[in-house]
């Protein structure tokens, strides 16, 4: 413990150097002061800071801020950087704009560029619904698998991205599944049977109390017009294939019953209103490259 009565500098017997006077149970500390240039450097940092205030944006004012004599602004710096990047990409972007979709895959460099461009655009625009990796979610199609509602060729993907699905764009993909339960077309028990029949097409378990024959008949009467007699779907109207293992809204009996009762008519925006044709082209190539491209 420090005893303040003894808190006085002494001369250390061994080194002849003055101590700080601090004493910890007999352990003392030599006074080794810093050189004065150390202090000058401290002053220099203060001068530097003042210079910084003058040159760069610094103090907040009542309605604005001290903008600094250089007029530097982080936003301007970003804009300049982005402009530089756009200029750097310019020739490749021009090439991408000019090239027909089918030809891009033949040019390695252009393809790599398009995919990188498309990936960035995908993460900015598409990832909120389809997932960062394109894996989709319940109600938002998975873009990596081999199942496509509206077609998986580059041209079909391009159309879907450009005009979207079930929106007010004249050229958007349009179709409407009736809400069989809500509109009273089918009774709840009938819906259970249709749902069981649909699930049986993919080899899923059928609840014991359901009547598959009844379900098959109801399917032929109500559903086959869009989904096809063999339930293989119809890409012209975005009617899903009901015999495969891919289920946009889930494959449980309850999920299928809900679909038939209330219908599912989700929509996708028309991206030609927000993105330029080159970006849509890059997005098309990227989505086509995810794994399921036809």
């Amino acid at each position, binding site marked *: 413990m420090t005893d303040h009565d003894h808190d*006085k*500098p*002494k*001369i250390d017997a061994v080194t*002849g*150097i*003055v101590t*700080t006077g601090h004493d910890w149970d007999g352990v003392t500390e030599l*006074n*080794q*002061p*810093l*050189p*004065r*240039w*150390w*202090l000058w450097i401290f002053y220099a940092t203060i001068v530097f800071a003042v210079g910084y205030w003058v040159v760069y944006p610094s103090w907040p004012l009542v309605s604005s801020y001290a903008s600094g004599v250089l007029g530097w602004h982080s936003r301007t710096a970003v804009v300049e950087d982005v402009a530089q990047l756009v200029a750097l990409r310019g020739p490749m972007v021009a090439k991408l704009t000019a090239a027909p979709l089918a030809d891009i*895959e033949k040019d*390695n460099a252009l*393809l*790599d560029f398009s*995919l990188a461009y498309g990936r960035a655009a995908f993460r900015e625009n598409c990832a909120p619904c389809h*997932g*960062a*990796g394109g*894996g989709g979610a319940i109600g938002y199609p*998975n873009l*990596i*698998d*081999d*199942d496509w509602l509206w077609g998986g060729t580059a041209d079909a993907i391009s159309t879907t991205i450009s005009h979207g699905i079930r929106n007010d764009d004249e050229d958007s993909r349009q179709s409407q599944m009736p809400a069989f339960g809500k509109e009273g077309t089918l009774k709840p028990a009938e819906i259970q049977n249709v749902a069981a029949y649909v699930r049986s097409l993919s080899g899923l378990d059928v609840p014991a109390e359901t009547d598959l024959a009844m379900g098959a008949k109801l399917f032929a009467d109500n559903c086959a017009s869009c989904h096809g007699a063999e339930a293989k779907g119809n890409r012209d109207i975005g009617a899903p*294939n009901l015999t*495969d*293992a*891919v289920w946009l809204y889930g494959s449980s009996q309850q999920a299928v019953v809900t679909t038939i009762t209330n219908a599912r008519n989700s929509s996708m925006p028309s991206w030609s209103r927000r993105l330029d044709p080159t970006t849509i082209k890059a997005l098309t190539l990227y989505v086509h*490259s*995810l*794994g399921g*491209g036809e």
Partner: protein
Amino acid sequence: MNVVVPVEAGEDEPFYQPHRKIYPQRVAGTFRRIKWIVLIVTLGIYYLTPFIRWDRGPGAPSQAVLIDLPNRRFYFFFIEIWPQEVYYVTGLLILAALALFLMNAVAGRIWCGYLCPQTVWTDLFLGIERWVEGDRRERMLADSRPYTAQTIARKTLKHFLWLMTAWWTGGAWVLYFSDVPTLVRDLATLQAPFMAYLWIGILTFTTYSLAGFMREQVCLYMCPWPRIQAALTDEHAFNVTYRFDRGEPRLSAKKAAAARLKGEPAGDCVDCGQCVVVCPTGVDIRQGPNLGCIQCGLCIDACDTVMAKLERPTRLIAYDTDVNIRARVEGRAAVARVIRPRTILYFALIVAVGGLMLWSLGSRTLTAVNVLHDRNPEYVRLSDGGIRNAYTIRILNKHGDARRFAVTVEGLPGASLEVIGAENEGGRQIATVGPDQSRELRAVLSLDAAPAKGSLPVTFVVTDLADNLAARNEDNFRGPEVAKP
């Protein structure tokens, strides 16, 4: 610090260390000669290396040592390092640290005294100072009097020469980062990038201020090594040591001779102070081990000169240990324990790390493949119930020409592979990668059914069609979690 603060106990202590300018005196001898040789060799390497040419064929830089930051390549003679191999730099740093420890265990601060850039450039600047302004006494005299025209002229010339040296130092630095003939021409015609001039300016400033003005202050106040070194050293390390057993009691040459005639004790130290005046950090070695002592050995040369004149044995100051001084005092023989557990350990570690680096350098291939499994999602279910995994693979082609690589997978029977961006030639996925480039491709791997286990190992194999050498990288193929029984 060896400066005794002249205050009585109880008085106010000074807040700051009073500045004491050091005027190291010229000295000649063994260690001075070693220091000149080390200086010429190290500075020669530093200033001249960028000018060495090395033919790597067309399309590659023909400079032996080049840090190509824009293209992310480091060239060192026949070695080309990619950013992926930055661990070699880590290895070099580990080797450097271990070498420093070993040097320290054998002979103290060899690094500080002979090899440290601060020491080497300070030596060079001191040499210029002595050449222009004269030796210690002349400089002290000139500084103590009002400046004459000659003093001003000499100081101006000194600072001009210092600035030129500092400028060359910065100039050589930037040459490591760009093609030398082009950069030198651009610098001369003022067309070089702003960054080149900026870095020359920064290094000119640091060299000029650190070697010209800061000097021993860097060792005393800025450098961490003296502190670390003190914790790493032991009693067997050879340090520049005043052999007090021989030197004490200090007497003038005459008194010592008289004392010896009478058979009274007389040390060899005549208290001439030569060891202190030649010291570049202003240390008195006779006070014992000292943080300020960089152990350059110049005091040994100074003392040897005096001893030779007095016709006494030399090496009153020498590389020695306190253990040996004690041994001599007690009449035992001095020993040199260079080989001891500490030095063996450091040496073994150096051999191990160096060997590992050489082995990895020797066994590295010019083709490599990195695989990154898609994590979002890890897998997708296909319409037929199959499972698909997607990977980002990066093929590294370190050859000087474009190569074609066949991409295949091993260890996953029945899997079908599609590589987007590769050409499909008879079922084989062939990807072309440009010279000294890497290429990122998307690989999509599908199985007909979910794997029996949640995750199966799979190996990506990239075979160079030109020489049939293959690079491999392991990853996993994932499916739905399988409940554990």
